[in-house]
Structure formats: C-alpha cells, structure tokens
C-alpha cells in the first residue's frame, strides 16, 4: 500500500513512517501542509494520514477540502490532537473517512489505515461474505460454517459481519466498539472481549480450526488459516 503521511512532528512522523514500512507499506512523508497538498494532488496514494494542525499555511482541514474539491477521493484518516466531539465532527464533515486522536497506539493506527483502504475497494453492495468455510448471507441474515447452520443474535451477527468485512486485517476493540455498537466511549471493562468470546463459542468452538484470532496488544483478526 502506498500511504502519504502528513505530520509535522519529527518524532511522531518518523515513528509512524517506520511502523508503516515495517508493516510492508510504502510511505511518503510530508512535514508541512503545502508539501502534503502538493504530493496528495500530484501522486496516487491508497490512503492519507493527515494531521489537523500543520505549518506551511495549509492546515489539515484545508488540505482535505482542497483535495475533495478536486474530486480526489483518496481515503483520509485524521490523526489529530484536537479531540473534542466537535473537532471530530468537523473533520469527518470535511470529507475525512476516519478520525484518530493523539495520543494513539500504533496498532490502532495501522489497523484503521488498513481498514480504510479495504473499505474504499469494496464499494459495490455485497450480498454474501465468505471467509474459508464460513459463509454469511447478508440478505437472508444467515450464517453457515462448513455447511452447518449457526444461530446468532442480531448483535453477534453484526459483530461477525464486521470481522468478515475486515477479514485478514487487524480489527481493534475501539473499531468494533464504533463499528458494531456505534459507541464512542471507552468502557472500563473488557466488554468487547466478552462479546468476541461469545461469538467464538458459536463460530469456532464446534469446529476444528479457529477463524477468530487474538492479536496481542492490538485486537482481533478473522482469517482462514492456511497452515
């Protein structure tokens, strides 16, 4: 994946760039808004990570608005210290696809950036999701694994659907909280783990292989085990 990182802080910028490269991505790093806008407008990227407050006369919001005005639909993730609800809303309204506030955990950033590009690829409406021997019929709201019907509660169904749509990608607890429950707070208890473990009881336990993996210090991943 080719990712443009627009971040003026040297330490944060090089930390993120290093992490992304280690994860196998190609990173262009601009440390001011003007260069960022130039790069974003003249080259093709799979995703842009954008700071809100930037030197160089072009701030993040302005950069994104200019980009969208040019009909450039590259997915954008805001990475900002502006953490108020209104800041977040403004960022998303300006055309941002996701909003992560600083300080952040790198695994969260990586997972969200990777999810962003997946989202942009699958634009067309799907009626069926398949991961390994797990099949989900979105119209009939039915789930089968290895031909065997699995009964899920509505929320469990949505949880599994989210995991399947992001199959092969790390999905963090916050992403599940926002994507499945539409909650924007941080529960003090391990609620997400409990719900995932309930889902595992139904989806993984009766079968030989486990599809839902726990990724340490990050979250979960649903994938068909090739090994």
């Amino acid at each position: 994946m080719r990712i443009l990182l627009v971040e003026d802080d040297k330490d944060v910028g090089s930390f993120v760039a290093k992490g992304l490269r280690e994860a196998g991505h190609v990173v262009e790093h601009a440390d001011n808004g003007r260069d960022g806008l130039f790069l974003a407008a003249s080259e093709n990227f799979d995703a842009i990570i954008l700071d809100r407050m930037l030197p160089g006369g072009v701030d993040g919001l302005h950069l994104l608005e200019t980009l969208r005005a040019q009909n450039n639909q590259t997915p954008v993730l805001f990475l900002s210290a502006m953490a108020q609800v209104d800041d977040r809303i403004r960022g998303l309204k300006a055309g941002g696809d996701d909003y992560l506030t600083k300080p952040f955990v790198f695994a969260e950033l990586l997972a969200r950036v990777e999810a962003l590009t997946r989202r942009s690829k699958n634009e067309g409406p799907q009626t069926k999701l398949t991961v390994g021997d797990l099949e989900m019929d979105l119209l009939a709201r039915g789930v089968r694994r290895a031909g065997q019907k699995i009964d899920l509660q509505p929320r469990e169904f949505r949880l599994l659907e989210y995991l399947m749509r992001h199959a092969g990608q790390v999905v963090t607890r916050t992403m599940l909280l926002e994507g499945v429950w539409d909650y924007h707070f941080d529960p003090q208890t391990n609620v997400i783990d409990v719900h995932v473990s309930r889902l595992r009881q139904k989806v993984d336990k009766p079968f030989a292989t486990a599809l839902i993996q726990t990724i340490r210090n990050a979250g979960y991943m649903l994938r068909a085990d090739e090994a």
Partner: protein
Amino acid sequence: MREAGPAATLAPGPRARPWRQGFFRRFRHPRPWQPGRWTPPALLRSAGLRFAGLYAALFGLSALALAFFLWWDTAALLDRQVDASIHADAEGLNERWQAGGLPALIVTIRDRLVENVDDDAIYLLVDTGGHRLAGNLDRWPAGVAADDDWYELPIVRDNIRSLARVHTFDLPGGFHLLVGRDVEARVRLRHVLTDALLWALLVIAGLGGVGALLVRSVLQNTLADISRTTAAIGAGDLSRRVPLSGRGDEFDHLAATINDMLERISRLMDGVREVSNAIAHDLRTPITRARARLEDALAHAAGEADLRAAIERAEADLDGIVAIFQAILRIAEIEAGARRSAFAALDLAPLLADLAEFYGAVAEERGIAFVSRTPVRLPVAGDRDMIQQAVANLLDNALKFSPPGGEIRLIGEAGGESVRIIVSDQGPGIPEAERRHVTERFYRGESARSTPGSGLGLALALAVAQLHDGTLTLADNAPGLRAILTLPARRAVDV
C-alpha cells in the same frame, strides 16, 4: 499541541498564536481616539443628548405640522365663507339690476355700503369710460378685465392697504361691476399662527434642552452601575454584579442579562480553575509513579527483559494518565455546554436495552445477575453519545464493584416530568460521608487510585446530568450503591 518532541521546538514558529496577544491587548487598552478623526466635545458625545435632540426635533416637526394644517383648514374655511357671501351679494345686486336697472343698482350699492358694519364689503360700478358710478374703490384695479371671474388682489381703501377677494361682472351697456370682500383677516390669522409657532419653537428648544440634560443624567445614572460593574470585572473582580433597580424596565432586563452572562463566565472560569487543579492533582501522582519506575529501571534493570517490562509498565502508566486527562477534558467540554446545540429528540428505551445487552454479557461471564427493565418508550431531549456514556460509566462502576453472585439492576422509569435511570449494585457501596464528594466535579475516590480507569466516571455522569438540566443522586442500595440519573422528560410539544 504536539505530543512528542523537544519542548524547545514548540515556542517559535507559525504555531505560536499571534491572535492571543492582539486579542487581549485590544481589550486591556481601549483604542484611543484617532487623531485624524473629528471628535465631538464630551457633552455632545452623550447618547442622552442625542436622544433628547432627536425627540425635540420630532416634537418641533409635529408642532409645525399642526400649525400648518390649522392654517390650511382655517384659510380654506374663511375663503369658502367669503366666496359664499360674495355670491349672495352678487345675486342680490343682480335682482336689483333686473328690476330697476342702473339707478336701482347704484342705490342698492350705496345702501349696502352704509349698512356694512364690519366695513369689509367692496363694491365698484364703473361705466364704459371707467368712471366710478358707485362703490368704495377709487378706480378699477389694474389687471382685472375678464367677465365673471375671481381675483385676489391688493387694494388701497381710505389710504389703507389691504387684501381683497373680488368677483367681476360685465353688465349690458358696457358697465362693469365688482363685488368683493376685504380678506385682511386671513393675513392677520397667518401672522398670529406664525408668531405662535415661533414661540412654540422657542419653548420646544428650551424644554428639549432641559429634557436632554434630564435624559442624559438618567441614562448616565442607570448606566453608571453597569459601567462600574463591568469596569470592576475588567479589572479582575469577577464577583461583582449589576444592581437591579427592581422596576423591571429595559435597564433591569439589560442588567439581568449581563448578570446571567457574568454568572456563566464565572462558572466557566471556575471550571477552568478546577480543570487545572484536577490535572495538577490527579495527574501529578501517576506521572510521578511512571517517572520513578523508568528512572528505577534505567538505574537498576538487570537485563533486557527487565527493561522491556519497565517500558511496558511505563506505557500502561501513560495510557492511564491519558485516560484521566481525556476524562477531565471531556467533563470540561460537557460542562462548557457547547454540545447543547446537538440535542435532539431521543428515546432512551432502545439505548438502555442496547447497553443492557452490551454489559449484560460481562455480568453473566462474571457470575453476576443482570436485571434490566425499561418501559416501551422513554422520551427525552439530549445528546445520545453523552447519555450513553453516562449510563455506561454507571454500569462500568457497578460491574467493577460487584461481587460474584451479586445482582446489578438497570431500571428505566418515566414518572411525570422526568425520566429516571437507576443503576444499582450489591457491592461495597459508598459511605454516606463520601457520597457527597463523589458527585463533586473531578472528585476521584480513594478506591479510584487503585482500580483501573480514570476514576472520573461518576463525575462525568454528573456533568452529563447537569448539562441536560437533570440530577445524579447516589443512594444506599442496602447493600451496595444505587445511582439515579434523572433527566427531564420530553413532552409532546418539545423538539
């Protein structure tokens, strides 16, 4: 606004905020009068004087209009009367002419002149040569020629100049007759009115001037209170309020509005102060702890494994610090009330059902009974995310302190004017004495220092309740804690 990097790079550069300086400088030093602009003397700069001047001008104009209409109407009435009497006179003379010819006419004119007590009638009968046959005018006035027509002209009678309105007739045989009335009275009337108006203007100017000074002093006295108060507040004394006169007039309304504004400003200021206190107090301890651990690791770590462990602990410590920090800022954000504009009609019933399902799973896993009961509808007006978070905090707390085998209840109730959300557990509860503190802003109980989380969950729930004009009360659940979040119910007419 940066999170990392040496502090030295923060100070200069485009991120410094130039507006801050300019903004405050403008407030501290009122802009001096610019030398190039004309500045009126102090007295004329008074708003009271301007009001009074405007008032006097309006008054003068209305007096002028009154005088004008009075003149107009009276003059028209007089004219009509004169015309009518001239008409009647001419009719009479015509009859005499028809009946007795020229001699009769001459006699009649003479009789009428004698009988005219008011001395305002004017007649003149001349022959073809323009010689006077009868009447009280010396000669036929110049410029009067046409037959059967009206004229208004100056005349000289007994050496007195005056104004007359006349009607001319041509008689058979080349005689000309002129019948008229002296209308000098109308001129006198106009003089009277003009004089009266001039005097009135003088009085208006005098009264207006006195009125202006009165209005000015009244305005000054009333505004002086406001001016004094705002000046004192500008100087830093935020406790001052504008005194109300109790008359309930516009100035009282203004004063009340200003007082409300001051109340809000001082609340916000208190909030800021408390936020900084809370940050100083609540963050200093964990930061100290994290720093000590890192320093200890640096000095005493036996190997890489030790160092790694120390770094991981430090990371967790930092996350904890960030959690507290974010909770404090979130509470401050809620208390500032900026999100009130995002209030919408909201049914809490499905919201509570979702939360019950969300947390119920955790309770079940821990062997805690979870009972949830909500009516079909619980309409309120509010911010969905905030209420969700407030109730979630209460449930988080309940889960955190519930022993296995205990019971947690989430009850929604609609009762008249309000909607109540009750979260109760069977944990250790909070001692009566501490309960009051818990709902103080930013209060972290002693237990919060040893359990994970910001410890500000209840404070946040309280802030959310207050933003919605509701309350959060804590009661004894015997055993355990019963938290009651009360929000105003939305009536059918709202939102």
